């Protein structure tokens, strides 16, 4: 997902202590991820554990990635790429040891760089991702994979046919350890029968950037160009849509959507406000709305069950029980917070009872973001796969490629969104975008999700 400078400001705002106040006004039993106690006895990464990587595409989100990598001990950013010198310079400040390069092909030729992160504008992912895989690089490709179904399929298939390489899509929620923890409450039946889900992403911002010349201005505002942009649903909604499918454990069967230009009448045609409705099996529906015209309540996801609802905001989550829901037992001891006069139970991943009672909600700034988890896992997965291939060929030679692939299939991977999740999310976002653009309900055919 691409972010704007204002997103970074919002993060700072939340970290500044006002989060506690904000949360105090709301009510809910909080699900808080345990702060990293393991850091005390954690193996300090030796040089061999560091993974050399390059970031291709140094726009706002690319720079967020560079900045996040600088906080990951196993990451060593050795090259940065952008064809726009000003962006390259800004990124270089964030990673002074990295070599700034204008042509991404030079990075792909470098045998010393095993992994690349593709953060170019979405419509330009394909050539870089495909060539990177061909060059034998492990690839992290931002979401949406592409802006057309054909391109998304091409990328996903190339990844599928490169079993020696690790491919990850930038759907970073999939790497956040808080999420499978929360999902367990749904899967275990604590929330009862799933009724519906909704999510929103609201943030008042223009999305328009200015640039010194008209050609650059057109390039930089690719998100406002219907030729090159999937709009809000493709750039932002895709994360929550993927999350909903993950949590609901199914693919949507149909999508309806609407879009309007409500505030930013600067000549653009891409809507600044959208509402989408995804239909899932058994009558379950998921609503998602997204606007650049209002910031109230920011972003969250809510999953409603007959016994409880779960609210996820960033890396925090709360459970709101129905009065007639069966007692789970542990909630008597859990910390509770009040949201709009509703009481929510905090669910803390990995915590003992005492910690659940006494621990203060960790500030956002202290915990790794989902993006950090995703990039950490990416580097680990890529390194583990390369090491496994190396160990295999060193010990058994290279004359049994089938056995090598069988061995690689046994290498455990840290949680991530792979090419399949990336492709399916792209299909859902693309079709939602089409529904918004045409004003039609679109039935999502199962074969659209297939990767030959």
């Amino acid at each position, binding site marked *: 997902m691409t972010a704007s400078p204002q997103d970074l400001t919002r993060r700072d705002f939340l970290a500044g202590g006002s989060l506690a106040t904000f949360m105090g006004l709301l009510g809910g039993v909080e699900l808080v991820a345990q702060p990293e*106690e*393991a850091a*005390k*006895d*954690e*193996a*300090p990464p*030796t040089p*061999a*554990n560091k993974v050399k990587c390059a970031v291709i595409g140094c726009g706002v989100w690319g720079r967020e990635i560079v900045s996040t990598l600088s906080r990951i001990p196993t990451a060593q950013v050795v090259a940065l790429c952008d064809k726009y010198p000003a962006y390259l310079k800004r990124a270089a400040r964030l990673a002074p040891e990295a070599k700034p390069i204008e042509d991404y092909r030079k990075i792909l030729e470098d045998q010393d760089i095993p992994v690349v992160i593709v953060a170019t504008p979405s419509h330009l992912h394909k050539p870089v991702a495909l060539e990177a895989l061909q060059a034998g690089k492990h690839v992290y490709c931002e979401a949406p994979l592409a802006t057309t179904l054909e391109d998304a399929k091409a990328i996903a298939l190339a990844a599928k046919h490169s079993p020696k390489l690790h491919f990850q899509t930038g759907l970073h929620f999939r790497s956040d350890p808080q999420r499978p923890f929360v999902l367990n409450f749904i899967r275990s039946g604590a929330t009862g029968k799933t009724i519906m889900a909704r999510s929103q992403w609201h943030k008042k911002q223009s999305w328009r950037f200015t640039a010194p010349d008209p050609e650059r201005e057109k390039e930089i505002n690719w998100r406002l160009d219907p030729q090159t942009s999937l709009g809000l649903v493709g750039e932002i909604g895709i994360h929550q849509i993927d999350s909903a499918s993950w949590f609901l454990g199914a693919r949507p069967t149909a999508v309806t959507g609407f879009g309007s230009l409500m505030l930013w009448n600067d000549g653009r045609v891409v809507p600044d406000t959208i509402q989408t409705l995804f239909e899932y099996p058994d009558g379950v529906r998921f609503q998602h709305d997204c606007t650049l015209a209002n910031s109230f309540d920011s972003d969250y996801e809510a999953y409603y069950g007959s016994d409880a609802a779960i609210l996820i905001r960033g890396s925090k989550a709360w459970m709101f029980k129905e009065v007639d829901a069966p007692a789970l037992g542990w909630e008597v001891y859990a910390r509770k917070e009040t949201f709009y006069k509703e009481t929510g139970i905090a669910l803390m991943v990995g915590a003992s009872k005492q910690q659940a009672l006494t621990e203060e909600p960790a500030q956002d700034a202290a915990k790794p973001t989902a993006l950090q988890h995703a990039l950490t896992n990416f580097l*680990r997965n890529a390194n583990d796969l390369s*090491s*496994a291939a190396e*160990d*295999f060929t*060193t*010990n*058994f030679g290279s004359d*049994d490629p089938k*056995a090598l692939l*069988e*061995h690689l299939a*046994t290498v*455990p991977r*840290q949680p991530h969104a792979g090419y399949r999740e990336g492709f399916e999310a792209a299909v859902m976002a693309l079709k939602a975008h089409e529904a918004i653009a045409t004003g039609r309900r679109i039935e999502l055919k199962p074969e659209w999700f297939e990767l030959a």
Partner: protein
Amino acid sequence: MKTPGILVAALLLAAAASAQAAEGVTQYQAKPGSKMRMEGTSNIHDWQVEGNIIGGSLEVGPNFPSDPTKAAPGKVDAKATVSIPVRSMKSVEKDGKPYNAKMDDIMYEKLLEPTNKAIKFVLGELVVKEAAKAASDPVVFEAKGELTVAGKSKPITMPLKMTVLPDDKLKFSGTAAVKMTDFGIQPPEPLGLGIKTGDDLKLIFDWVVGKKKA
């Protein structure tokens, strides 16, 4: 005369056979299909680590039993070096699913990876204890050798079972009980929450080797 001809033929055959025997050495190389498992304890719960790369080679002399049912008890000529890449070992749940990457990192640190990339075993002596009951049953050996973990070596003796597999392959299965402190490793106390890892380790392995093709 017929007899001398047969005699000559027999002598030639014997000569050929003894020439083969004098050379006598058969070489085997590690093949995919091995499994290595390390079991440990702690004050909270038992744990297990698995890997499926066991590299190395084996060289056996003419007295190495080619027919498992006819293995005569006694010492056999055999040399072997075995190597297990430390980073190929990963912690697993009881059902074999991956457990925890952080535990793996602590293990690698304790085993001094990447300075010491492998757990090594060098075979010193191999003695047949019991022949196989049937062709598909294992031959029981006792193996003596030197085990090197985190750069420190220790002599060990362990029972070894050898099963003949198709395609000129052999499988050696064994168990060795060792202690972390034998190799200068202090049992880790991760997370600072009072989890104390036990000193005792059980190494269980199946090592598959195949005859080296000329």
